[in-house]
């Protein structure tokens, strides 16, 4: 029988105090940096130079960095750029950036809405940023769920794979609200040792908590 199911070969977590790669410590927030500073610290630690990073809102930075770390040493160019899908989810959409935009329009005496904030009030902008950085042109989808729900992401990527719309899936969860943030991103392809099932993905998600 031909093995035609997806596997997980790599995954990455980012929380306020550490970054894990395949469940193992990669970067620790040993100096107790605040959220913004820790993201900047991660950016420096992984030694990339990408000026667009500094224009992003915090949640896009978080998702962007998680994917940077995930794709380090992975050669996606063996795939057609149209066959790489990105399927993300979260609970709070872009609520912090929504408040930032709202604060610019509360009263007409002090009215200064900015396109550079407004554009980030859509959760899929993060997918756009990741796609631009990595030249990924495949399927896009952003789901909003109360709590992480592996089934939603796994089912969607598996369906895309089974219908020939994607060969690879970058899936996960990127949430940022007030002082708490969490990112969990994984790579699903034909290679890897972990089955791409909701139960396995749930186990991986819970490694950081």
């Amino acid at each position: 029988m031909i093995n035609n199911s997806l596997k997980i070969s790599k995954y990455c977590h980012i929380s306020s105090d550490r970054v894990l790669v395949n469940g193992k410590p990669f970067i620790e927030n040993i100096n107790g940096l605040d959220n913004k500073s820790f993201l900047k610290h991660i950016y420096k630690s992984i030694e990339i130079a990408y000026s667009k990073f500094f224009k992003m809102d915090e949640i896009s930075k978080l998702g962007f960095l998680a994917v940077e770390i995930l794709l380090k040493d992975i050669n996606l160019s063996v795939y057609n750029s149209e066959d790489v899908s990105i399927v993300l989810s979260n609970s709070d959409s872009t609520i912090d950036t929504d408040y930032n935009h709202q604060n610019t329009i509360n009263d007409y005496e002090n009215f200064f809405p900015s396109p550079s904030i407004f554009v980030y009030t859509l959760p899929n902008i993060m997918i756009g940023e990741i796609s631009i950085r990595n030249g990924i042109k495949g399927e896009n989808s952003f789901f909003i769920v109360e709590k992480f729900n592996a089934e939603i992401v796994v089912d969607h990527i598996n369906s895309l794979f089974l219908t020939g719309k994607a060969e690879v899936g970058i899936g996960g969860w990127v949430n940022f609200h007030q002082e708490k943030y969490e990112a969990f991103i994984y790579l699903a392809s034909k290679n890897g040792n972990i089955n791409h099932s909701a139960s396995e993905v749930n186990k991986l998600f819970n490694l950081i908590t």
Partner: protein
Amino acid sequence: MVFFVADNIVSSLGMSTKQNFKSLLNGNTGISVVENNDIYNEPFQASMINDNVLEEHYNLISKKYPYSNIKHTRLEKMLIVSVDEALSKTNIDITSHKTGIILSTTKGNINLLEPDKRNSFATNRVSLWKLGEVIKKFFGNPNMTIVISNACISGVLAINKAAMMIQSEKYDNVVVTGADLVSRFVVSGFMSFMSLSSDPCRPFDKERNGLSLGEAASTIILSSDPNGNSIRYRGGGSANDANHISGPSRTGEGSFIAINKALIEAGITSSDIDHISSHGTATPYNDEMESVAIDRHNLNKVPVNSIKGYLGHTLGAAGLVETSILLEEMRMNTLIKSAGFENLGVSKDISVITQTQETEITTCLKMASGFGGSNASLIISKVGNDK
């Protein structure tokens, strides 16, 4: 197979697809000057739902469903009225675990962030998952509502997702509903982009100078059982331009790929398409990009329209509103002219519809594009005309 069994549009032009379609046949636009200081401190062009009409419909419906009796927001009322009207045309049991609900929205109850509204509902009411929960509870649906928030392609993505859910046989029926408000949040944002038109928007026209916003809720019900209907889902796809977060690709790359994916899944070629419902926002860049994608697929001679000249850009509802109109065009074998269009103002030679006309329509393409470089498309056809 996946069939389109019912649809609805709640907008300035009516509370059903039929009512909306009638206005389109008569060439009426729902876009007019809005003077509402709560939304914006200067007059702007938009298509707005009449409050009294909405309340009237909502009050009639709210007693029909005994499952939850909480207070609803304006947006929730729009969604409830839309889902109920679509459901009423089917025998589908919304309380069945084999009936799924998908919600498509960009900003949901975003007006609850306004300082004077913050205390009117619990804080989490602004969350999109909560909106999904409110809707499913109202209708007594046992499943978790799947919420898609992917900018202006949300509606088309949601229909594609519904088809996937039915094909996987986990669901027999999926109710796809979507809505967005014309809120201060959104109007101020688009104003800051300077992308709002000073007159009702004019998709693909030489004189176009931006989009008009519109308020709508829309619902499309898909099912594995045709329920006596004859239009079915053939394929869909999405793709990213990987180019820019707030402007489309000049080469129409993502749109081209999304159409290609839909064609492959449908098992047809572009020569089988006989009508296109474009995204057609009337911003200079969007319409130009779509003309390039249409040209790259050799669809230059295929009649194309944009519904946005009638109902404005309804954001998370747009894909549903425009697919509902497309379904009615197919049922009535009538091509609706693209409102606001006079002279071709894009670089590629495409066939924008200038006269509403009767003609046999069998296989159609719906296009959508949005912020984040996102693009999506889907193909539908009449059963018996399967190419």
